[in-house]
């Protein structure tokens, strides 16, 4: 099955987001299909991280709609109005969307294993025994089985980020969002995190990745989307957007980062 024929998982239409008078996202349309890996590129301040945070309603949008697996995120539609959902309903919709942050955001007062089982037990009401067993499998998959009882502070940045990916996967998400996952890492640690992400992509996970790693985008992405000043400038397969960009803004950005 090719990506083009897979069912749509994420659909954004006319998404706007402003902080005060500062329009950060100004009308984004985007479609991501099941199993697709989309890399969002763009200069800093182009609104790509903000847009990513809108997808799981960490930021409220001012206009437009975003739906994941056919459900609006954070809102309920009644006629032509969107009503914001209650906290519990938002939380339940978010639990199907995994997110990995630039600054890892592991819970420092919990061990690695406790980080992984917290949400499955509290949100999914899984039994502690099965949650722990699954957490150990996931840690093994990211190569950190022996760190289960360590506290996050004792791990390197690369190890912390791999734990953060495992923590998100513990919720069995339909979609994974990555917000500049390697930007806070020392250069020699970037590879181990990208390897884990590459493995995830190979397993068919749907991923939206905000990144500055052009190499990763070229190699792993099905679609590369270039954003600037809050809008999508161009989008397409990496061969097209990275090798033969149609727009001047894309060309000048790539010239700077490559």
């Amino acid at each position: 099955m090719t990506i083009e024929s897979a069912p749509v998982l994420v659909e954004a239409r006319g998404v706007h987001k402003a902080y005060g008078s500062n329009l950060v996202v100004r009308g984004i349309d985007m479609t991501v299909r099941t199993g697709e890996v989309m890399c969002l590129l763009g200069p800093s301040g182009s609104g790509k991280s903000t847009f990513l945070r809108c997808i799981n309603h960490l930021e409220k949008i001012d206009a437009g709609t975003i739906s994941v697996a056919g459900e609006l995120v954070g809102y309920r539609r009644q006629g032509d109005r969107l009503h914001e959902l209650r906290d519990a309903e938002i939380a339940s919709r978010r639990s199907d969307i995994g997110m990995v942050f630039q600054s890892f955001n592991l819970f420092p007062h919990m061990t690695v294993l406790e980080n992984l089982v917290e949400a499955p037990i509290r949100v999914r009401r899984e039994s502690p025994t099965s949650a722990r067993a699954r957490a150990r499998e996931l840690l093994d998959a990211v190569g950190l089985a022996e760190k289960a009882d360590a506290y996050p502070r004792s791990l390197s940045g690369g190890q912390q980020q791999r734990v953060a990916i495992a923590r998100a996967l513990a919720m069995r998400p339909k979609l994974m969002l990555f917000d500049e996952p390697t930007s806070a890492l020392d250069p020699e640690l970037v590879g181990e995190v990208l390897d884990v992400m590459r493995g995830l992509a190979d397993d068919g996970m749907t991923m939206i990745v905000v990144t500055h790693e052009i190499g990763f985008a070229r190699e792993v992405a099905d679609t590369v989307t270039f954003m600037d000043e809050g809008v999508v400038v161009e989008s397409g397969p990496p061969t097209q957007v990275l090798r033969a960009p149609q727009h001047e803004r894309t060309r000048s950005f790539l010239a700077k980062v490559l």
Partner: protein
Amino acid sequence: MPGSEAAPSPAAAIRVVPVRHYGQWVATALVLLVAGLIAVSLLTNPRYQWDLVFSYVFNAQILAGLATTMWLTVIAMVLGVVIGVVMALARESSNVVVSTAASAYVAFFRGTPLLVQLIFWFNLAALYPVVSIGIPFGPTLFTESTNVLITPFLAAVLGLGLNEGAYMSEIVRAGLQSVDSGQTDAAHALGMKKSQTFRRIVLPQAMRVIIPPTGNETISMLKTTSLVSVIAIPELLWQAQAIYSRTYQVVPLLITVSLWYLLLTTVLSIGQYYLERHVTRGDSRRTDRTLLGMIARGIVPRHAPVAPAGETSTERTSP
């Protein structure tokens, strides 16, 4: 050193002589001199009347006062922590009316002397002779004289607790603000509800910042309760005063009382040490303070380090 055996370097023979700190020798001599003078005076000045001091340690009246002091400390601190958490959350509220009211509360109770507040609560009847419960501008369901309702003990609890609440709200707020917003993001992204995020993620991390100054507040409260002797609450100091107003043994009784305060603050400091060690687990920056250091903090608790967030000052003006 692996290489040094094979070929002893001439550098190995050179001795390192540290800088001599003559000032420190002088300071040490001075401290020892003063300590010696104090010790001699304590042992030889008969007016200390040590036999009297120790004869009063387990006096029934003193022990009753001690029990009242401990009760007051516990009740006032519990009230203070509850008010503190509520006021901290109110100050962070997006509702301007609520947050302003909380700020006003803190400003008022921190801005006026505790002793004045205590006397004020004691004299509340002068301002409101009766307390009525009813529907505002409607019928009254219950009426009672203020002097009956606000007993001296209740006035003391209200005065100490409401004042403490203002200080605790600043401590709790600094604690909540010390938790990175990425932590809430991560918890929300995992599908945790706001209440779960607060309870499981934010509060445990805030506690590291909240617990140490709260321990200091408790130690401080234990000593501050002596203020309520002015509104005739029979706590430790008041009982001592009651005895020495009959016997004129002022100094021995004040020493007895001081020994009890010192013992209790020491016990609290040790408890604080273990509690802090417990809440900072997993924190590599955790401070390995010595037990003796903690006891010293109990004796001089106002010199304790301020919470890492640092924005909140918890000094209070001495009454």
